[in-house]
C-alpha cells in the first residue's frame, strides 16, 4: 500500500524511456484485455524517426516494399509537405500483421506514446484481428514474409532483366491495381502441386472416356451456324471463367506474351492490392474503434490515478484535434473525418446501450438499453464494414449533431439540389446516402473482362458498367488502356455500357493508340 501511494503514476513529465513504455503498456493491456475484453495479436512496438515514418508513408505503410519510382515520388511529396509545415506526421502507423507492428514516432511525448499504444496496439490491433473482412481477405501471419519475398524477388528481377523492364511491368501493374482485387469471392488458391494433379486427373478422365466413334459424327453445318457460334462463345467464356472483374488476375493467368517472372510481378501487385482491400472499406470503423479504445483507456487510467492531470489535459487536447469535424463551409473542411464520425457513432452506441432515449428505443429496439455497451461494440466491430455499419447504427441524434445533409449533384445541371437534411423526413435518406458513399462497390469504376477469342484475333474485350452516368476520365482511361495492351500483347477494347439501360455510351476500339 505504501509503495502504491508513492508512485501510482505510470509516468511523469514528457520524456519517455523504454522502461516507462513497458510499464504503460502493461497498464494499458490490463484495461484493454482485462476490462474491455479486446482480443489482439501479439504486439511489436517499434520506435522510428520522422524520416523513417516518411519512408513508411511512401511505401504505402509497409515495413518492407520493393523499389519503384512512384514511392520515391510519394516520399518527395510527403517530405515536401512535412518540411513546409503543411502537414504533421502521424503519431503512429500500424500494420495488419501477426505480430501486429506499431510504429511510434520518437518525437512523441510520453503521454502521447501511451495514447498511441492504446490507439494502435490495442484499438487497431483488435479490429484487424476480429473484423470479418480482415479475417476473410487478409492473412496477417503471412504478409511480412510475403513482402520480404516480394522485395527480394523484384530486386532479383531487376538484376536479371534490367531496371527498365521491371519498371515497365510494375508501372502497368500499378495502373491496374484498383482492378486487381477480387471483390466478391475469395481468390482461388491452388498450389502448383494441386494444379498439376488436376491436369493429370482430367487427362486420365479423357483417356478413359475416349471413344473414336465421336469423331465420325457429322458436324453441324451452316443452318445452325449462328447458334453454334453463340454456343462457342459461351463455352469459351466458361473456360476462361468470364466475365472476370480482376483484370490483373486475368492478365496474369491468360496473357499471351508475359514471361513467368512478369506474371509473378503482376501477382505480387495483386496480392498487395487485395491485402489493402479491407482497409479501404473500414476507415470509419477502424479509426472509430481505435479512437474509442484509446479514449476509454486513457480515461480509465486517469480514474485509476495512474496518469497526472497534466498528461490527461495534453491527451484530451490531442484527442479533440483528432475528432474535430469542421462544417462544409469551413476552410479547414476536407471531407468527413473518419475519426470524428467513427468515434461519435461508437460513443453513441455505448450511450444507447446504457442510457437510451425514447428515439433510440424506436430506432434500435434490438440493443437500446441492453446495458452492455462494449459487448455491442465488439459485435459491431466484428461484423460490419463502413457501409453496413453506418446503415445500421447511425442514429438521428448524430445526424442532428453533425448537421448532415445530402446534396445531389448532376453533371448536366447548373445547380446542386439539397435532397434531404437532418429532419424527421430526412434521417433515413441521409443515412442511406452516407452509407452509399462508403460503399466501394458503388464508387469504383466497374470494369470487367467480358470476352476474348484466344483462337481468333485475340482481342481482349473490356466492359465498363456505367452507373449513374459516371464516365471515366478520358486521358487516364486511354493511358491505362495502353498499359493493359502492354500486358496483354494484342488488341484491347473497352466499351462503356449503361448499367440500367444497357445502351453503349462510349467505345474505345482496340486499334486506337496502339502505342
Amino acid at each position, binding site marked *: 500500500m505504501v509503495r502504491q501511494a508513492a508512485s501510482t503514476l505510470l509516468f511523469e513529465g514528457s520524456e519517455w524511456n523504454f522502461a516507462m513504455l513497458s510499464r504503460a503498456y502493461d497498464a494499458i493491456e490490463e484495461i484493454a484485455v482485462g476490462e474491455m475484453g479486446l482480443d489482439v495479436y501479439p504486439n511489436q512496438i517499434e*520506435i522510428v524517426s520522422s524520416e523513417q515514418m516518411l519512408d513508411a508513408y511512401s*511505401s504505402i505503410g509497409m515495413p518492407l516494399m520493393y523499389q519503384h519510382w512512384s514511392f520515391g*515520388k510519394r516520399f518527395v511529396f510527403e517530405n515536401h509537405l512535412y518540411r513546409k509545415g503543411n502537414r504533421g506526421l502521424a503519431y503512429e502507423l500500424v500494420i495488419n500483421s501477426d505480430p501486429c507492428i506499431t510504429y511510434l514516432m520518437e518525437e512523441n511525448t510520453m503521454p502521447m506514446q501511451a495514447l498511441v499504444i492504446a490507439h494502435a496496439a490495442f484499438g487497431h490491433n483488435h479490429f484487424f484481428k476480429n473484423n470479418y473482412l480482415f479475417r476473410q481477405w487478409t492473412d496477417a501471419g503471412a504478409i511480412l514474409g510475403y513482402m520480404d519475398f516480394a522485395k527480394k524477388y523484384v530486386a532479383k528481377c531487376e538484376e536479371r532483366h534490367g531496371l527498365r523492364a521491371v*519498371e515497365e511491368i510494375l508501372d502497368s501493374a*500499378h495502373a491496374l491495381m484498383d482492378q486487381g482485387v477480387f471483390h466478391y469471392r475469395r481468390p482461388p488458391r491452388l498450389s502448383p502441386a494441386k494444379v498439376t494433379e488436376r491436369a493429370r486427373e482430367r487427362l486420365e478422365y479423357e483417356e478413359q472416356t475416349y471413344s473414336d466413334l465421336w469423331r465420325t459424327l457429322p458436324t453441324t453445318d451452316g443452318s445452325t451456324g449462328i447458334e453454334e457460334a453463340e454456343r462457342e462463345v459461351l463455352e469459351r467464356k466458361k473456360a476462361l471463367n468470364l466475365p472476370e472483374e480482376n483484370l490483373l488476375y486475368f492478365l496474369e493467368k491468360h496473357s499471351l506474351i508475359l514471361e513467368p517472372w512478369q506474371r509473378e510481378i503482376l501477382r505480387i501487385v495483386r496480392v498487395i492490392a487485395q491485402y489493402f482491400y479491407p482497409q479501404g472499406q473500414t476507415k470509419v470503423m477502424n479509426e472509430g474503434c481505435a479512437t474509442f479504445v484509446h479514449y476509454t483507456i486513457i480515461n480509465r487510467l486517469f480514474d485509476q490515478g495512474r496518469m497526472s492531470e497534466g498528461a490527461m489535459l495534453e491527451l484530451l487536447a490531442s484527442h479533440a484535434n483528432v475528432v474535430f469535424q469542421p462544417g462544409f463551409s469551413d476552410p479547414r473542411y476536407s471531407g468527413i473525418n473518419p475519426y470524428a464520425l467513427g468515434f461519435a457513432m461508437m460513443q453513441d452506441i455505448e450511450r444507447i446501450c446504457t442510457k437510451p432515449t425514447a428515439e433510440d428505443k424506436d430506432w434500435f429496439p434490438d440493443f437500446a438499453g441492453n446495458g452492455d455497451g462494449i459487448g455491442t461494440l465488439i459485435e459491431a466491430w466484428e461484423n460490419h464494414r463502413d457501409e453496413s455499419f453506418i446503415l445500421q447504427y447511425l442514429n438521428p441524434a448524430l445526424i442532428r449533431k453533425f*448537421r448532415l445533409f*445530402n446534396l445531389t449533384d448532376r453533371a448536366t445541371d*447548373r445547380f446542386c439540389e439539397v435532397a434531404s437534411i437532418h*429532419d424527421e423526413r430526412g434521417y433515413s435518406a441521409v443515412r442511406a446516402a452516407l452509407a452509399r*458513399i462508403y460503399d466501394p462497390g458503388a464508387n469504383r469504376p466497374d470494369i470487367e473482362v467480358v470476352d476474348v477469342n484466344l483462337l481468333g484475333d485475340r482481342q481482349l474485350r473490356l466492359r465498363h458498367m456505367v452507373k449513374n452516368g459516371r464516365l471515366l476520365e478520358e486521358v487516364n482511361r486511354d493511358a491505362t488502356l495502353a498499359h493493359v495492351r502492354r500486358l496483354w500483347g494484342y488488341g484491347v477494347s473497352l466499351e462503356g455500357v449503361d448499367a440500367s439501360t444497357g445502351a453503349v455510351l462510349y467505345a474505345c476500339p482496340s486499334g486506337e493508340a496502339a502505342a
Partner: protein
Amino acid sequence: MPNFIDRRLNPKDRSLGNRQRFLKRVHDELKRSIRDQVKSDKIADVDAAHGVPVPKRGADEPGFRHSIGSGERDHVLPGNETFSAGDRLKKPEAGGGGGGGRSAGRGEGDDDFVFVLSRDEVLDLFFEDLELPDMVKLNLKETVTYKPHRVGFTTAGTPSNINVGRTMRNSFGRRIALRRPRSKEFDDVVAAIAELEDEEQLSQPQRRRLLQLREELEALERRRKRIAYVDPVDVRFNRFERQPVPNACAVMFCLMDVSASMGEREKDLAKRFFVLLHLFLKRRYERIDIVFIRHTDEAREVDEDTFFFSKQSGGTVVSTALEEMQRVIADRYPPHIWNIYAAQASDGDNASGDSERCAELLRDELMKRCQYYAYVEIIDERESEIFGSTDNGTSLWRAYRTVDGAVPNFQMARIARPADIYPVFHKLFARHKVVQLRR
C-alpha cells in the same frame, strides 16, 4: 510483454533507391526545367537548391477513375445551417470546384507539386557531361605547389627530423647484440665492492673476491665505453618527399566591352555566360577570385556592379583590356599559384589594326599563363543566320580564329539569343572531343 524495438538506429536512406529511380524517371523533364530556370532571370541563384515542379509527363500514374464532370452523385456534408430539402445551390463556375466536391479526389489530384532538388542534384543536371577540356591533365601539369609528405626513414638528415623511437629501437637491439653491460649489472658489482670494503676485516677469500670484483668492474667500464649507448649507426631520420599538390585556387577574369554598341541585351547575355563559367569553376576550386575588367578605348578593373550596370562612352580598343589583364596577373596572380581562367564577351567591334595586336597578345603572352580562355561574340539574331560558324565576321573574330587554331585551350563561339548560351556553353566545355580534334 510486448516486443519493443528501437528502429532509429537503422540505416537511414531506405528510400534513396526510390528517389534515385524517381529522378531517373523524370530526368529529362527535370533537366529541361532546370535549364529553363537558369535561362530565366534568376540566374544568380543557380548555385543553390531548386524547387522544381514535378513534371506531369513521366511521373503520372494512370488508372481507371471516374471523371468529376459526368453523371450523378450524392454528397453528404456536415455543418448545415440554412438549407432545407429542395433548396438549389448554384454550382461554382467550371474549374472552381470549391467546397465539398473536391474531397473525393484527395490523394489523386496531388500530382503537380513542387519539390526540392538539392544543390548537388541541380548542378549535376546542369553540368551533365560538361567538362573543361583536358581539365585534369592541365591541372596536373600546372601544379607547382609542393607539400612534404612523410615517406619512411633515412640515415641522414637534420637533427630536427630525428625519429627517436626508431633510433632507440636500433640502439636497443645493438646493445643487446653486443652485450653492453646493463646498468644493473654495473650497480650490482659496485654494491658488492662497497659491501666488501665496509667490512672491518677481510678474510683471504674475501680479499680475493674484492680484487676479482674490481677487475670485473674495470672490464665492465671498458666495455661500456667501447660500446656506445646510442651509436651514429642507430640514428634514423624521418624522410620527407615533396609531393605536388593540385592547385586549389582559381581566378576568373571577366572581360567585357562596354562601349555604346553593347546594349542591355548584349550585357545580359554576357552576364549569363560569366555566371555559368563561374559556377563551373566554383565546383572545381576551393577558392575563386573574380576580376572584372571592362573596356572602351581604355580598360579598367572594376567591381561587379560597375561592370554590369554603369555606363561609359568611348571607342573600342580591345587590346587595352588584355593589357590590363596582363598587368593584374603580374600584380596579384602569379600563374604558378593560381589557375587562371578568362572569359571575354564582346560584340566584335574593335579599332582598326588593334585586332591583330590582340591576337598577338593572346598567343604570345596570355595563353601561356591561362588555363583556359573563352571568347564569345554576341551578335544580332539576324546575323546569326548569316554567319553561322564561319570564319567570316568582324576583324576581332577573324584575328581570334588564328589563335584558336594555334592554342588548344582557347575556345570561341557566337551567341545571339539567351537560348544560345547553353548550347554554346556546352560546346565550349564539351568533353575532350573538340580539343582532341584540333591537335
